[in-house]
């Protein structure tokens, strides 16, 4: 029996969709139970499985016997605005979730780069955007999840409560592990009320001048919702851009605007709501124009060094998509590079205690390099052992990284 026929027999005709570009059969389960059935079978048959969301972030090119798409695992399972918690299935598009929540006067303060992404992709890849400054990453919004391990066991952690100290935090382990620890089928997310005022301020100029301006903003004590220094390519501008986003009550936003403007020492242009929304959307969507994206972490005070390193090894002409989260000390770069270049920069960055995560890349690059690597001490061995605890046969086609 072919794999496609096997899937049809397991979960019916509706559970099988068109194959991928190279003819790999694609299963489209509609429930956790169907996912578990498929994974148990895959595990027993030693199939390799590629998890797929909307196909708009990670290239759908990992070799596999079977594609497991979350496209039918959609919709809000539970939303009670009084609790400020939403439970949503992983195949739901992030933009659709945002719209549904806005209708209830709520939002998840997270603006993941890319466009047309699924909730599962955002969580599995832990791609926080500029709002990380004010609200943290996905780990700070994620209250729990349902995770299916490679052999189809259902692991449920966290819940619909905003505080939870029961058991080990598998939720955080799985978020940002690129699906290596299992298939996320639904998540509980913390919500906030949509802020009454939302303001974006923009300055243009020299990179170092803007970085210094951003640091001066932080010294004022205010923590804006976003404080991002953006390359000309990313900001669709002739110069580097400092973009500041402030949210809150009208009085608080006005006070913060004045304090930030004074502290930065820069001329900050105030964007209207439409222009601001367009600016952020275009900036974040532009990240996937290039094939490879990496994230480099450092200290706020070492950002110049990190940017110089990227310029030296990856972006000699300063033409790539770069966005710098000044408070978090994170540089995100998107461009073209081969595995050798990326390995080199990961090694050099590691010597400076700067971890480099390969967020997306074509399969030949990410399979050679892994999403993570250049670990210190024996952390690589721990990660590898954890990975094997969840997926002993390597069922999921995810190049998490080697043990080095």
């Amino acid at each position, binding site marked *: 029996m072919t794999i496609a026929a096997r899937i049809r027999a397991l979960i019916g005709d509706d559970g099988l969709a068109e194959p991928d570009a190279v003819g790999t059969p694609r299963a489209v389960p509609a429930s956790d139970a169907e996912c578990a059935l498929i994974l148990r079978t895959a595990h027993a048959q030693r199939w390799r499985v590629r998890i797929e969301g909307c196909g708009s972030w990670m290239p759908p090119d990992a070799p596999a016997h079977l594609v497991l798409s979350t496209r039918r695992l959609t919709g809000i399972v539970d939303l009670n605005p009084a609790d400020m918690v939403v439970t949503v299935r992983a195949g739901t598009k992030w933009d659709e979730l945002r719209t549904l929540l806005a209708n209830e006067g709520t939002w998840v303060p997270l603006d993941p780069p890319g466009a047309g992404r699924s909730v599962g992709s955002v969580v599995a890849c832990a791609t926080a955007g500029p709002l990380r400054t004010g609200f943290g990453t996905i780990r700070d919004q994620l209250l729990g999840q349902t995770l299916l391990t490679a052999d189809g066991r259902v692991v449920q952690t966290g819940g619909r409560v905003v*505080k939870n100290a029961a058991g080990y935090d598998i939720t955080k382990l799985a978020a940002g592990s690129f699906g290596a620890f299992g298939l996320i089928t639904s998540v509980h997310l913390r919500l906030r009320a949509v*802020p009454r005022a939302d303001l974006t301020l923009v300055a243009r100029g020299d990179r170092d001048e803007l970085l210094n301006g951003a640091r001066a903003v932080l010294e004022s004590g205010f923590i804006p919702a976003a404080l991002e220094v953006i390359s000309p390519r990313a900001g669709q501008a002739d110069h580097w851009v400092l973009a500041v986003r402030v949210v809150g009550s009208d009085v608080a936003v006005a006070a913060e605007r004045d304090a930030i403007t004074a502290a930065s020492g820069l001329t900050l242009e105030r964007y209207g709501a439409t222009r601001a929304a367009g600016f952020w959307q275009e900036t974040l969507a532009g990240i996937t124009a290039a094939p490879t994206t990496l994230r480099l972490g450092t200290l706020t005070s070492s950002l110049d060094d990190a940017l110089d390193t990227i310029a030296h090894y990856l972006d000699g002409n300063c033409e790539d998509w770069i966005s710098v989260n000044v408070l978090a000390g994170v540089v995100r770069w998107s461009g073209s590079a081969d595995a050798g270049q990326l390995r080199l920069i990961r090694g050099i960055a590691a010597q400076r205690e700067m971890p480099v995560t390969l967020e997306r890349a074509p399969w030949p690059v990410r399979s050679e390099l892994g999403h993570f690597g250049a670990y210190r001490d024996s952390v690589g061995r721990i990660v590898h052992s954890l990975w094997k605890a969840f997926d002993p046969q390597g069922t999921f086609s995810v190049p998490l990284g080697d043990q080095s």
Partner: protein
Amino acid sequence: MIPSQALDALAAAVGPEWLKTDQAELATFASDGLPTHVSRPGAAVIPGCRDEVLRVLRILHHFQIPFVARGAGTGLSGGALARSDSVLVVLTRLTRILEIDATNRRAVVEPGVVNARLSTAAEPFGLHYAPDPSSQSACTIGGNVAENAGGPHCLKYGVTSNHVLALEVALPNGELVQLGSSGGESWGPDLVGLFVGSEGTFGLATAITVRLTPIPKAVRTLLADFAALRAAAEAVTSIIAEGFVPAALEIMDANCIAIVEASVYAAGYPTDAGAVLLIELDGMDEGAVASEANEVEALLASGGARNVLVASDPERRERLWQGRKKAFGALGRIGSDLVVQDAVVPRSRLPDVLEQIGAIGKRHRLSICNVFHAGDGNLHPNISFDGSQPGLSDRVQRASAEIMHTCIAAGGTITGEHGVGSDKLRYMPLVFTADTLGMMRRIRRVFDPHELANPGKVLPAHSCREP
């Protein structure tokens, strides 16, 4: 129970004066902040530096002796108790603040640093360490990491796991590893997030890098009193729904008010109130915080508050907080034993769950005091009692179990900030499937293959299903 060869080696590793084997001395380590759980360790060793910690763990690993890490012993889950076949590794001599990096808003501390001391040290830089457990003047950062501790101000600022950037960890085999990175960016999967709250079952944190947060320049504390507990709980939901994110939203019920007001910690709370709601609003701008306080005050009035006191100066604010902060101390004075629960429920279920808890108390003829983090839905129903009274302990245990089942039935969980320890072990199968518990056990064995670190805590072994 501990082999003499091992004791000799431990004495040599830390110096004989820092190895405790005398039963009278060990009695001081027989319980933590939860007096209902008692267990005397076989020995207690008190290393003075990281290298001594590593030496101790290697000796214990060599002899395959179980061990339990302990900070100040203020935990509320019986998590830092060791059996007679185990060694307690006490970390209260590792008290150095290794670095305060004001530019990058971070600090590196040893595990024995007392929580409040870090904020005091950061204050000259205009910074503080935000997680503030009620025991912050005594509890240690290492203990906070182990339990993923919270506190009143975690509603706005988050719990411990939101503030730990990196960890240096001594594994149970005495190996040292660095988790995370100094700026907080994950280095691989989120092992820092996994370690925080693992209750000492993965190893010991020997250095902790934490985020420091700017001290707010403007603060308003509001005390609203309500005729009924339900009305206070409903006011919490309406404040959050209106988009306010107070730094703290705390409730004390009538029983708790009565106990506090009858104690030396009396704060002037109205003793005829059904509940008081303590609200703190903060920010960097005086005008903005004052404006928010006015709006919240109006919201409270429309929600049925009988009176609202507003304080902005530190002395008056401190006075309003005093009763809340000292509530556990006041409770400890009325009975020799205390059961402290820590369940969390969805915020909207608070009014109903509180009524059910009241009914459980009446049914079992027990006085239950509620003092809790209402904004987080994190309940602390406390039962103070005299365990020497025949039958009373059993009644308390039955009532506690009913409260826990009520919270779980409301969509809640068993602990929000105190951890599972040994106290809540029996409830774990109520909130996790056997497969989930089995996966947790496999994770534990990655760090600790022989399960030497804090054995018998967090995971009920008989409920873990593994392939």
